[in-house]
């Protein structure tokens, strides 16, 4: 068994240098791309995430070893297993990530990554503290039936490192053949945007092919510039609140609402689901937006219909 380093730990110096470089670019081009308090929150969330990962990592690794006893093949560390493992891990990431946006229990942990209204390299470091509670590791478990756990964790680490550099507005678009296959800054800007058109799109980790295959791809448009954050932005730089706010929301909803169905809905329904329809989900937002853009087209054909107060 090869002695594998942790890709994310090895990459930390590069992360620091690239953040510095991007800050200098912003300073020249558009200072509003960074905000010191936002950057501090993002990077402290990243630091806290490594602590949370260290606390729970051992149990996840033990679980992976236990599953590996039941491996279907004896592939070992043969060279071609590496790219195959990376590819399948990337598919597992897509499934995880899609669920993370569609099921509130998973969203409560993933929302941390989306809670900044900025989109820069420091946003990439805004990582969850509560992945273990939301059991996000279950999506990777099937891989341990095929590949050695060390290989899977190494590929997962590489995937995370890949996703770092795409969190930037400093890069426009790549040649078409790259944008066709790879997840890029442009594709991932769409993922972080709250524009109705862009909600719940581009779940890719490294390869954008999964979104294209499963119908969740949306291209970035120049006339619809991404606005970053979440539907209900925090309006606070508080670290702890960013890390746990959605869990607090779940707890409040589950304790106040009556009926098991409703309680389950608040835990496992889509984010924004409510028992009385008083809140917005990404589906209701998209529906209203479609209706509205339709209405607007019609209105522009008529003389001024503006309402007065």
């Amino acid at each position, binding site marked *: 068994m090869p002695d594998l380093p942790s890709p994310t730990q090895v990459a*930390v110096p590069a992360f*620091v240098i690239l*953040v*510095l470089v991007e*800050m*200098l670019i*912003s*300073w020249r081009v558009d*200072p*509003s*791309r*960074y*905000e*010191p*308090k*936002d*950057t*501090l929150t993002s*990077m*402290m969330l*990243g*630091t806290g995430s*490594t*602590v949370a*990962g*260290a606390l729970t990592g051992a149990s996840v690794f033990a679980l992976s070893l236990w599953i590996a006893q039941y491996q279907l093949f004896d592939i070992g560390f043969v060279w071609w297993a590496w790219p195959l493992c990376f590819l399948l891990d990337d598919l597992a990431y897509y499934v995880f990530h899609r669920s993370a946006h569609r099921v509130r229990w998973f969203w409560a942990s993933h929302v941390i990554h989306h809670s900044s*209204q*900025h989109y820069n390299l*420091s946003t990439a470091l805004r990582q969850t503290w509560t992945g273990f509670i939301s059991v996000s590791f279950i999506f990777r478990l099937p891989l341990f039936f095929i590949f050695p756990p060390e290989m899977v964790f190494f590929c997962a680490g590489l995937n995370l490192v890949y996703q770092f550099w795409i969190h930037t507005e400093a890069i426009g678009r790549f040649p078409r053949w790259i944008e066709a296959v790879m997840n890029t800054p442009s594709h991932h800007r769409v993922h972080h945007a*709250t*524009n*109705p058109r862009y909600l719940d799109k581009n779940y890719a980790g490294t390869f954008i092919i999964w979104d294209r295959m499963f119908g969740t791809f949306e291209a970035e448009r120049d006339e619809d510039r991404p*606005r970053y*954050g979440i539907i*209900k*932005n*925090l*309006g*606070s*730089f*508080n670290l702890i*609140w960013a890390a746990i*706010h959605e869990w607090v929301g779940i707890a409040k909803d589950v304790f106040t609402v009556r009926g098991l169905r409703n309680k389950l809905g608040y835990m496992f329904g889509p984010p924004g689901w409510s028992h009385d329809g*008083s809140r917005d989900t990404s589906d209701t*937002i998209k529906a*209203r*937006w479609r*209706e*509205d853009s339709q209405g607007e087209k019609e209105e522009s054909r008529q003389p001024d219909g503006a*309402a*007065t*107060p």
Partner: protein
Amino acid sequence: MNWVVLAGSIAAVLILAGFAWLLKLGATPQIESEEAAARLARDAHSGFRPIDIALGRDGRAALLLGENGDIVLLRPHGAQIAARVFRAAPPITRAGGELKIATGERMFGDVALQLDEAEAARWAARWENQGGESADA
């Protein structure tokens, strides 16, 4: 993970955030006009059509009343604007030209809107018609 690595990470984080601060990165968001407020409110609440807009004199915050009775509140958050959408009128208090809107969220906080006194009085009166709570402080 050991304590040295953790301390090193925190130090690196503080240095990077300090660098952003030294470069004076960030911005003071300004809501330039009622049109800008309407656009921002629509960005936060798709399909929103404002029928009345209270824009703070300093361009820092705005309160918008929509066609369907929805209400959007805008206020700065760092270099950006953060919004809240209400389906029912949130309680407001007026003191002279200042309207204070209670969001009911401790972490988001209440929002103070600086208006001309007559405008503030008009909004407070409007609030009562709207079925919301309003009080003079």
